[in-house]
């Protein structure tokens, strides 16, 4: 894929109600565009009402994720030259979420799961006056930092076949966040959070297939976070904790 070539982009178009239909677009390549640049060019020049999402355009917001060649990716940081095959590119909306239109999905179910899993910091009662002293190289900090940089793009949840099949399963992103909070010495509940996610339909639903880790654009390892939660939950259960 080099400048001057024409690429055929197949986009699965459709709304929440209509059955999706693949539509082909032929797009001339200029420079070394990202997939998002290509989608933008199609919307501007060929299909003004093509539904797609983006915001930051530089890998910080996680709005632009979609299926690129069947694999969930950020489109803003994925260069066409690295994913197109034989002059073709296949795009579809992220699976497992309601389609708003064409490539744009409603991410509310993803964040509802996040919230339901307890994926939010819970402050200690002790008040505001002081900040916790946590040395940068301490295990407390390193453990909390390992999985903290998630931007909530939904790629891991889209890659996870179990999350797609089990509606009640929190999914890799939410569990990854819970693992960070379990390790956060400042969180009021910390390890007590384990009981909230360890029950039926919870973290033990994970089969450790590792699709989340393989697809995470931030290079995080949600699979390992979930494994950490499993181990901690087992140790807690052996200690007789709920």
């Amino acid at each position: 894929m080099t400048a001057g070539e024409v690429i055929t982009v197949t986009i699965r178009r459709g709304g929440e109600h209509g059955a999706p239909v693949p539509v082909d677009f032929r797009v001339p390549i200029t420079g070394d565009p990202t997939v998002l640049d290509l989608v933008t060019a199609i919307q501007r020049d060929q299909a003004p009402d093509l539904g797609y999402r983006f915001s930051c355009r530089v890998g910080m917001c996680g709005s632009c994720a979609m299926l690129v060649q069947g694999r969930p990716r950020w489109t803003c940081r994925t260069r066409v030259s690295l994913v197109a095959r034989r002059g073709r590119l296949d795009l579809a909306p992220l699976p497992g979420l309601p389609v708003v239109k064409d490539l744009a999905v409603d991410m509310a179910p993803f964040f509802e799961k996040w919230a339901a899993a307890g994926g939010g910091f819970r402050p200690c009662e002790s008040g505001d006056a002081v900040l916790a002293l946590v040395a940068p190289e301490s295990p407390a900090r390193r453990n909390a930092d390992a999985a903290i940089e998630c931007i909530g793009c939904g790629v891991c949840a889209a890659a996870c076949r179990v999350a797609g099949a089990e509606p009640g399963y929190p999914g890799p992103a939410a569990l990854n966040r819970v693992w960070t909070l379990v390790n956060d010495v400042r969180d009021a509940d910390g390890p007590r959070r384990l009981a909230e996610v360890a029950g039926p339909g919870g973290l033990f639903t994970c089969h450790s297939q590792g699709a989340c880790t393989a697809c995470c654009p931030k290079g995080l390892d949600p699979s390992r976070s979930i494994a950490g939660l499993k181990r901690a939950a087992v140790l807690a259960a052996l200690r007789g904790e709920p």
Partner: protein
Amino acid sequence: MTPVRRHVLLWLGQRLAGLLLAGGLAIHLFQVWSVGGAALVARPGGGVGWPLFYAGVVGLALIHGGLGVHGLWRERRHGLAALSIQRLTGIALVLFVPVHVSVSIACVVCPALAATVFQVAALPLHRGFEAAVVALVVGHGLGGLRVLALEGLLWSRGQKALAWIAAGLTMAAAVAVPAGAW
């Protein structure tokens, strides 16, 4: 006991039973390879050691397989999403093991039946079937050890890749060993 704790401990029980079962089956497979199935069934007056051993193995298999089937049933709506290699081999073994155990017990009880069974077992088709079963057991066992390593030891991705390579090599060995034993 809270439902959560019960759920966690059952999960742990399934994993631990699997780990012990892997050891038991390794011994069993070595026995089959070294003395042969017919000798195992016919072992005269071997004391209570081996019967106890096999009772234990069957018990572990019941726990491991039972909890596994329970999990499969609970997640039955997952459909294709849950059809990992681990689960497919597991389902196959759940179908095979009761038949294998029943026939083996029958052979111990009734030497006449054993003679017929071992005639059938000598057929080339059955040899192929045996190799497939060994591959299933070894594949399922190694996959289980891999998951235990990932979840219990928090192995990272590099180690996972290594584990897969090792698993592939051992699978090949698992097929080659019974083939060599003929």
